[in-house]
């Protein structure tokens, strides 16, 4: 901007001293505010300490219990490895099928749940809020509760587990997909709109290419989450490893629990690691 020839009269510029005072005052205000936040946080933590009957002394008092468990873990019992491996595979099958079905249902929903695509007219806005509301309800019920509900409906077995994982995945994946769609570069959408393309064409040629890698990454991430949650689904009779774990625990078979946990750790960390490696490569 040229200073000469300007028609508006500029307001008087503040002195350097004034500006420095203002900067100091700003630092003081920020410091006060941050201290207040820290105090509130500490009060909350202290409150939960009382409300959860938190008592470190018990750890020492029950050291013998801990000793028994750890002793079992030092000598894992591989005797029932076959049964555990079978159930571990079943857990994987539940997670794979549940993630697939969840993705199939979530893909169309996610476009309706994307603010930037939908909130351009009244009908779109209504659909957007309906989908968002439904998704948040589905997501707020934990997978384990979904499992209990589906066991009541279809009875004990892995099928209930697949339904539970599917239900939860729809909520999770449609949220992740919607957010991927909301983060697209709108210029590419404008460019296709300007060619006279209809909304379906704009989504197929302009939105899908942009979000594809994020969608694949999100499916893999959901698969990781689903392997974790289907591990415990067996505890309520919805198939997979969980039931064996509960059995061993009831019989105080710590060496067998240890073996089972080793299998769980091996399987889930192998999946987490490979899934993370793939996600890094495609984004």
């Amino acid at each position, binding site marked *: 901007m*040229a200073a000469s*020839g*300007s028609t508006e009269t500029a307001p008087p510029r503040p002195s350097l001293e004034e500006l420095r005072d203002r900067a100091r005052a700003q630092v003081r205000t920020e410091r006060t505010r941050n201290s207040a936040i820290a105090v509130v946080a500490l009060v909350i933590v202290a409150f939960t300490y009382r409300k959860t009957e938190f008592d470190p002394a018990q750890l020492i008092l029950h050291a013998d219990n801990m000793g028994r468990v750890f002793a079992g873990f030092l000598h894992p019992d591989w005797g029932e490895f076959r049964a555990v491996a079978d159930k571990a595979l079943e857990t994987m099958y539940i997670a794979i099928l549940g993630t697939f079905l969840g993705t199939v249902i979530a893909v169309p929903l996610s476009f309706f749940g994307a603010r930037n695509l939908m909130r351009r007219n009244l009908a779109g806005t209504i659909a957007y809020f309906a989908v968002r509301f439904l998704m948040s309800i589905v997501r707020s019920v934990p997978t384990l509760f979904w499992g209990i509900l589906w066991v009541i409906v279809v009875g004990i077995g892995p099928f209930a587990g697949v339904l539970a994982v599917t239900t939860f995945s729809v909520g999770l994946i449609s949220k992740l997909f919607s957010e991927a769609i909301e983060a697209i570069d709108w210029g590419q959408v404008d460019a*296709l709109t*300007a060619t006279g393309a*209809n909304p379906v*064409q704009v989504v*197929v040629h302009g939105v899908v290419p942009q979000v594809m890698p994020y969608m694949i990454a999100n499916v893999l991430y959901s698969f990781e989450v689903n392997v974790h949650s289907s591990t415990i689904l067996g505890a309520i009779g919805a198939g997979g490893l969980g039931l064996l774990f509960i059995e061993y625990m009831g019989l105080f078979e710590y060496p067998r629990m240890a073996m089972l946990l080793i299998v769980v750790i091996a399987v889930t960390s192998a999946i987490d690691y490979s899934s993370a490696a793939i996600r890094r490569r495609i984004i």
Partner: protein
Amino acid sequence: MPRGQFLCVIGPSGSGKSTLLRCMNRLLEPDSGRVFLAGEDLTSLHGAALRRGRRRMAMVFQQFNLVKRSTVLRNVLTGRLGHQEGWRTYLPSFSSEDQDRAWQSLKRLEIEEKANVRADSLSGGQMQRVAMARALAQQPEILLADEPVASLDPETAVVVLEYLRDINRTDGITVVCSIHHLELAKRYADRIVAMRAGQIVYDGLPAALDDAAYRRIYGRLGFD
């Protein structure tokens, strides 16, 4: 505005150049006023009729706005989307006529060798040539160019404007081009419209744009 003209829109930042262009193809809705294309009121159109209207006006952008993860060829093919009809609009594939037209446009912009690479691997000048090929594949009557050279270095800017002039002269496509650079506007325009704060403050031949007019547009003379 007569058919076949090369019109440059100039004016300071925020004066309404982009808004004007985007109102023409209704990427933005004008608050007031009407846009006519060959006697047809574009401002009253909706749905399919609006899309047919848009098809007659191609657009190129300052940020090129290519689908970055798609190939150059697919980007140029998207220029054909407005010409697709019926069930084909729901498929990701293109007819062989559309394919032929896309390759012709690529050849015309001399970027056909890049057809199979991803759009985000190109330089800025190449991206704008792909964007112009996409616009040409659309077979428009008007080409709206929204600051097409503002993200490019001076030499590449001239190359892009030469292509725009060629499209204007050879194909008889009317060009409306917003541009910051006054010298370039004077060199390429048949007619210059200047805007300031949303108002037209100059409308005439490039040669007649003198110091007095310049002061009206920018409120001062030069940068020093």
